[in-house]
C-alpha cells in the first residue's frame, strides 16, 4: 500500500512503486482531469503540482510522490485567477491539454507575478496544444497576471 496526499485528501493505493504517478492519479484514484498524451515528459498535459512546483506526472514513479503534497486540476479552486482567466479568454478548444496548461501557468504565476510576454512564451513552450490555442493561453496568462492583456 502506498499512501498519497492528493488535493489535501489521503489515499491508500495498492500499486507497484514504479508505476508513473500519472496513471495512479488517473486510473487508481480516478482523478481524470490530469491527462496522458506522450508519456515522455514532452507535452505537459500530465502536469500536476508537487509541493507547489509544476511536475510532469508521467515521469515520476509513484513512490517518489510519497509524503509530498500533490495537487491536480481538481484541487485548484474554481475562483483561481488562472481558471477564471481561461474562461474569460475562452481558451480551450478540444480542452484536452488545458488542465496541464492551467497547472503549468498557475505554478509559473505563483513564482513570477508579472511575467513579460517573452517569459510567458519561454515558460509555456513545454506545453503542447494541438488545437493551437497558444494566442489565447498567452492572453489568459496576461489577464490572470492582471496585466490586462489587450482589453
Amino acid at each position, binding site marked *: 500500500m502506498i499512501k498519497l496526499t492528493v488535493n489535501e485528501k489521503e489515499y491508500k493505493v495498492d500499486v507497484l512503486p514504479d508505476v508513473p504517478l500519472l496513471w495512479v492519479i488517473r486510473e487508481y484514484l480516478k*482523478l481524470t*482531469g490530469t491527462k496522458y498524451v506522450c508519456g515522455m515528459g514532452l507535452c505537459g498535459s500530465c502536469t500536476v503540482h508537487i509541493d507547489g512546483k509544476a511536475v510532469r506526472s508521467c515521469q515520476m514513479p509513484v513512490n517518489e510522490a510519497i509524503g509530498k503534497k500533490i495537487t491536480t486540476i*481538481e484541487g485548484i479552486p474554481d475562483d483561481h485567477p488562472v481558471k477564471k482567466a481561461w*474562461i474569460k479568454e475562452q*481558451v480551450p478548444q478540444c*480542452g484536452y491539454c*488545458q488542465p496541464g496548461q*492551467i497547472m503549468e501557468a498557475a505554478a509559473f504565476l505563483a513564482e513570477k507575478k508579472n511575467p513579460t510576454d517573452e517569459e510567458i512564451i519561454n515558460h509555456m*513552450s513545454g506545453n503542447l496544444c*494541438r488545437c493551437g490555442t497558444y494566442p489565447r493561453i498567452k492572453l489568459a496568462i496576461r489577464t490572470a497576471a492582471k496585466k490586462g492583456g489587450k482589453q
Partner: protein
Amino acid sequence: MSRSITRREFLKKSLAGAGLTIAVSMTPFGHKIFAIQEGKKDIPFKPNVWLQISPDDVITVYVNKSEMGQGIYTSLPMIIAEELDADWKWIRVESAPARDEYKDPVWGSQSTGGSTSIRHMHDTLQKAGAAAREMLVKAAALTWKIEESDCETIAGKVINKKNGKSLTYGKLSQKAAQIKVPQEPKVKTGRPKLKGTSMARVDIPAKVNGSAVFGLDVQVKGMLYGTVERPPAFGAKVISYDEKAALKIPGVRYVVPITRGIAVCSDTVDAAWKGKGALKTAWGKGVQPDMNTMTLEAEFLSYLDKKGLIARNDGDVISTLKKAAKKVEAVYLLPYLSHVNMESMNCTASVGKDACDVWVSTQNQTGVFELAKKITGLKPEQINVHTTYLGTGFGRRAETDVVEEALEISKATGKPVKVIWTREEDMKNDFYRPGNSCRIEGALDDKGNLIAWSHKVVVPSIFARAMPGAVKNGIDPAAVEGIENMPYQIRNIKVEYVRIDTPVPVGFWRSVGSTHNAFTVESFIDEMANAAGRDPLEFRLSLLGNNPRLRLLLETVSEKAGWGKPPKTGQALGIAQHFCFGSYVAQVAEVSVDKQTGRIKVHRVVCAVDCGSVINPDTVRAQMEGGIIMGLSAALKEKVEFADGGVRSSNLHNYEVLRMHEAPEIEVHMVVSNDKLGGIGEPGVPPVAPAVANAVFKAAGVRLRHLPMNPETVLSALRKG
C-alpha cells in the same frame, strides 16, 4: 451547463419513457415532421428529438455532432435558441445517442466531419425550434383564451400583448405537449438576437476545471484494461508469442488473439503494458519490408512520369505550353502526416448477452453502432453508443479501428474493457494524410499573362477505402480538390491525377486534399507571378474573373497586412488564398529567414475569412487561429518517417508539432458576404503553408517546393540557390 453522463437514463427518458416525442427530419424533398411516440402527462415537453423543455424552464438540446473543439455544442443550440426565442441561460446540452433519428439529414449517417455540422443541421434545427415555439404560443393563447396573434415570445416567455402578462416556457410545457405538432412552422425573419453574437462556449467551464469526460476518462464498474500488440510493419503476421509469460504478470487476466493483433487484458493499466512486453511477440516481415522514407519519396517522384486520369482539360494546354513566350516547370514533394490527436485512440466497450455499451470519443457514431451490431450480433435497440468529448479529432476519429479492438476483447472476455493506445501505438497506427508529389507547368504570353496551367498530382486515394462511392471515373475527389476548381480563370488548364497505392494507410486529416493542393497551387501561382515580373497580389486579382467574394477577401487581407508597404528589416510578406468546405480564406504571412541556421520565423499571420454568414463569431476566430497553427505546424515541422516496412516516427521527439514559441501573432478579419453558409473547422488550415513559402521566397530568394520547411529543407534550398 454540463452533460449528463448516463445515456441510459436519457434513452429511458426519451425512447422508452413517456412523453410526446417528435422528430424533424430533412429529406431531399423538404422537411417532414412526425410523431415518434405519444405519451403520458407530467413529463417534460419534448416537441422533437432535438430539444426538451422541463417545467423548471430548463431547455435541453440534444446535439448529434461530436464536440472536438470546434464549439458545436454551443453553435447548434444557438440555432435552436434563436428560433425558439429561448433565454440562453436555461439551455443545457446533451450529446445525442446513436440512433437513426439523429442521423445527419444530408449524409444519412451520424458523424462529424467535412466542416459540415452547421451547414447540414441548420435548417433542421431551425424547424425544430420554430415548431416548439408555435406550440408554446398556442398553449399560451389557449390558456388566456386569446388569439395567437396577440402573443409574442421574448427570452423564454410568451407575452400576452393585450395586458402584458407572461408565462415562462417551463410553465407552458405541460400544455404545449398536448398540442398537435405544426408541419410547417414559420421560421423567424427579423434581425437575429443570438446568431452573429459571440456566445461563451458551454463546454469550456468543464474543460477548465478538469471535469469534462473524454473517452480516455471513462470509468466503468468492473472494467479491465486492454492493450494490443500490433504488427510493426504494414501487413506483418504473428509468428509466435509467449502467452504464459504474459499471464504470469500479476494482474494480467487474459491473452486474446483478435483481428488486429494480440490483446492483453488486465486489472490495471500498468499490468496490461507489462503483460504486452512479456508476450515477446515475433512478427513476420511486412508486405513491403524494404519500404522506408527514401523509397517512398523516390516512388512518388517516379510516378510523375506515369499517365494519369484527366480531372479537367480546358483549351489546349500542350500546344500553348509549346509556343509560350515563357514556360515554368516545378516539382513539389509533400510528406505523409500524422494526426497527433492529443487524446490517444481509446475505447471502452461492454459486451453482454443482451446489451452492448460503447463509450468512445468518436466522429462516427453510425460507424461505431454498425460495428457493434456486427460484432455482437445484438439487436439495434440493445446497443448504446455514448459519445464523450473528443481530445481533438481532425478526421482520425472517423475510423473505428480501436472500437473494433475493444468490442472484440470485451466479447471474448465477457468483461467491460477500456483499450488505451500509447502515444507510440497512436503514431504508428494512424490513417495518415497522404504523401504526394506534383509536376506543374505554366505558360506566360509575351505580356506576362498566365495562359496555361498543367498540374499532375500523384497521391494515394483516401476515398477508395473510406467511401468508394465518392470516387467517380477513378478520380478521388480529395486528390484534386482545390486544383480542378482553382479560382483562376486560365484559358488552358489540365489537371491529371495519378493514383499511387502504397502499404501506408491514408485517411482524412483536417482539410484533407486541400492541405496539399493549396500549397502547390498557391506556391506555383506565385512562381508564375515572379516569372512574369508581377506583384503576386495583383497577379492573382487579375485572374479572378467575376469572383467578388474572393476579390474582396484578398483586398481585405492585403490591406490589413500592409501589403505593398516596406516590410520590417529582414522580413517579407507572402500571400495565399484557398476555397474549401464552402468558405473562402486568404492569409498573409510575415516571415524572416535565418540563412545561417535555416530557421524560418513566422512573425504574424493576417487572415480574412468569408464563411457566408456567421453563427458564433468567436468560434470562427478560434477556428482560424487553430487552423493557422496546425497548418503552420505541418508546414514547418511535420513529416512521418518510415523504416523497415513500417512507421519509424514514434512520439513527439521525432514527430514534432508546433509549440508556443513558434506560434505567430494572428489577426482574424471576418468578411460577411451573407452568402451560403460555409464550413469553418477546416478552411483555416490550407493557406498558411503557401503564404509562408511565398514569403520565404521574397525574404531569402529561394523557392521551397518540399515540405516541411524545416532548417534542413531551407539550408539545402539555399545551397542550391
